[in-house]
């Protein structure tokens, strides 16, 4: 297990000159999990994106360090996984092609088809691996997003609305992912779902400011 630490310091984000949230600080280390809660529109998804380095905060910093070394923003994508309603798969490619694509573009881990199929199997979509993603239901797409986010075994896994669109079997698979991630790395869950919250050691509440 690598020793990863995520440190968020006074994060704030404006959109259209309005504060979405401000002064959010916390830290989380490997082997811990954190829930981000807050009303709809309070900026949970925005915070999730900032933690993954795909959105720049208006002020403040979010730094992921591994074994004491801070990861620079352009290398962050190698250590982070995000499952979010805003992440979309490529419609015109099949499930397994999407995973191959992700591996080749990221280019840090190699995985053979056997390993990819195991991963798809874990989320119960192996039998549909050769169908175009556009034929998938929203629940299946959500499962595929999990497979894609776990490809490189990220130190930091951020789950935004983790169980949306999923049936019981899917939720069970996700629970499994959550329990394993909080053992091996950092798990951040942005949710208001009580059952999801049980997987978090601590909670941070995002207060959307309404002006």
């Amino acid at each position: 297990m690598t020793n990863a630490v995520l440190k968020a310091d006074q994060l704030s984000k404006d959109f259209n000159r309005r504060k979405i949230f401000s002064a959010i600080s916390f830290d989380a280390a490997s082997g811990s999990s954190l829930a981000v809660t807050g009303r709809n529109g309070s900026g949970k998804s925005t915070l999730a994106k900032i933690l993954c380095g795909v959105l720049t905060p208006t002020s403040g910093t979010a730094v992921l360090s591994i074994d004491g070394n801070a990861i620079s923003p352009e290398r962050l994508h190698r250590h982070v996984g995000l499952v979010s309603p805003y992440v979309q798969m490529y419609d015109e490619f099949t499930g397994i092609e999407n995973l191959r694509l992700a591996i080749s573009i990221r280019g840090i881990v190699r995985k053979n088809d056997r390993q990819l199929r195991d991963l798809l199997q874990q989320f119960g979509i192996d039998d549909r691996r050769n169908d175009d993603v556009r034929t998938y239901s929203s629940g299946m797409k959500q499962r595929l997003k999990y497979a894609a986010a776990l490809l490189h075994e990220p130190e930091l896994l951020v789950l935004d609305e983790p169980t949306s669109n999923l049936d019981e079997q899917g939720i069970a698979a996700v629970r499994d992912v959550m329990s394993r991630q909080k053992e091996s790395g950092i798990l951040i869950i942005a949710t208001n779902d009580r059952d999801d919250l049980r997987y978090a050691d601590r909670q941070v509440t995002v207060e959307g400011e309404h002006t």
Partner: protein
Amino acid sequence: MIRSTTGKALLSIWLTLVIVAGLAMPMVPVPRTWYELPWIPGLEQKARIILFHVPMAWVTLVAFISAMVYGIQFLKTKNLDYDLKSVNAAGLGTVFCILATVTGSIWAKFNWGSFWNWDPRETSIFILLLIYGAYFALRSSIEGAEKRAALSAAYSIIAGVTAPFFIFVMPRIMSGLHPGAKGDEGGAAPVAQLHMPPNMLVVFFASLLGFTMLYVWLFSVRMRISKLEEHH
């Protein structure tokens, strides 16, 4: 400096003097006293236009470059105040750009016979007008102040680095009509290359300075209005 009432009063007097001098200094074949300008055949009274047309083009360029510099500063600091400065500079630049285009084309009509000739400098001012137009078209189609600021800053920078290529491109494409361009050795060339008599040169630079300060003044007024609008 331009904020103080004295400064504004001084600027007003300054510009008035420039206009009076530009219109009233008599033109004679052989200037003798400090206030007499030379009579250049082919240009005659039209030589005075340089005193009122070139400052417009100059301010257009100043506004364009400052809009770009503010854009760069926005990208560096993410401070939306710079974006506000950038828009206001571009907005003012557009006004001066239109003035430069119109005054220039009137000169063109009387000097070369048609309002528009596609000579290098007419073309460059036209391109600046296009860039300003595109800049505002882009701004109006982006939602979100931060995104709008970043993208329009990026656009102004790209425009800023490609526009200078016209300097290399133009002379290869066309022989110019503008004073000082190739193929126009006599006539207006001495004026355009700033080979003006010293007294005219003084008025010319006084005019440049005056209109630049006027730009600074208008810019500060506009900024104050924008700042107030922001609080509403």
